[in-house]
């Protein structure tokens, strides 16, 4: 599995996958989780190349998930795909260990720019 998608919206998980494939990454494999807690559990067994997460989710938010992951020493590249776009949110994301924050709505070009540094060769 290459990418772990974390979003409470099944629609958005589908749209992100579609955008990633449209960006040219046609052979990537995906796993999905509906919130940070489930994603954190999945990370105990899965070793994705990249995590893409929403910010606002029930049970455990995206930022809580990222902070828990980094606390465990997990350095997997992590990006947010979220409707949150304020400077405060971006700063919190980056200072907590995120590599990028992509704002919804996005297009395949946005996705490609964000993912290229982490998925080169895929």
């Amino acid at each position, binding site marked *: 599995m290459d990418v772990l998608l974390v979003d409470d919206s099944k629609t958005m998980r589908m749209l992100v996958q579609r955008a990633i494939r449209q960006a040219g990454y046609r052979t990537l494999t995906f796993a999905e989780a509906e919130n940070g807690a489930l994603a954190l559990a999945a990370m105990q067994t899965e070793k994705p190349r990249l995590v893409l997460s929403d910010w606002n989710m029930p049970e455990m938010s995206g930022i809580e998930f990222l902070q828990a992951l980094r606390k465990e020493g997990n350095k997997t590249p992590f990006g947010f795909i979220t409707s949150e*776009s304020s400077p405060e949110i971006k700063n919190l994301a980056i200072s907590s260990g995120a590599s990028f924050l992509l704002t919804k709505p996005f297009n395949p070009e946005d996705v490609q720019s964000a993912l290229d540094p982490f998925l080169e060769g895929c």
Partner: protein
Amino acid sequence: MAEPKPLTIAQLFSSLTGRTVNFTQVLKAPVTKARQAYGTYLIKPADSMRVLQLDLPLLGSFGGSLLGLPSDTVKERLMSPTGDEPLRDAMHEVLNVASTIISIDHRAIFQSMFLDAVPSTISESLKNPAYRSYFNATVDGYEGGAFSILAPI
């Protein structure tokens, strides 16, 4: 308080749905007989509330176009007495993404989606909203409708 511009809102939904979406601002609350949908938002840091009220067929158009559903299928699924989970999830996500235009100055966090009616505490406070911004929206190939941003007193 800065007001979201029709062009900004149209660009957001055009980008989200891949369809040509147009918004026209109107001075009075649109008269509509359509079923209504509501999104409630928490505005930070003030912890105030804002409500997006729109015609359900319009929200269905946005959600349906995300899923690639034809307009007629969207209408059928909206009328289904048991509801349609994929369309409901898509409409929920549309309201989530709309948080970026609900408040220009502050952070808006999407809270809940309601169909047909909001809880009485919210509906009471919406009778004379402190802030109101009314639009009519069209969506290429889909049903349009009324779209209002309201801040309860």
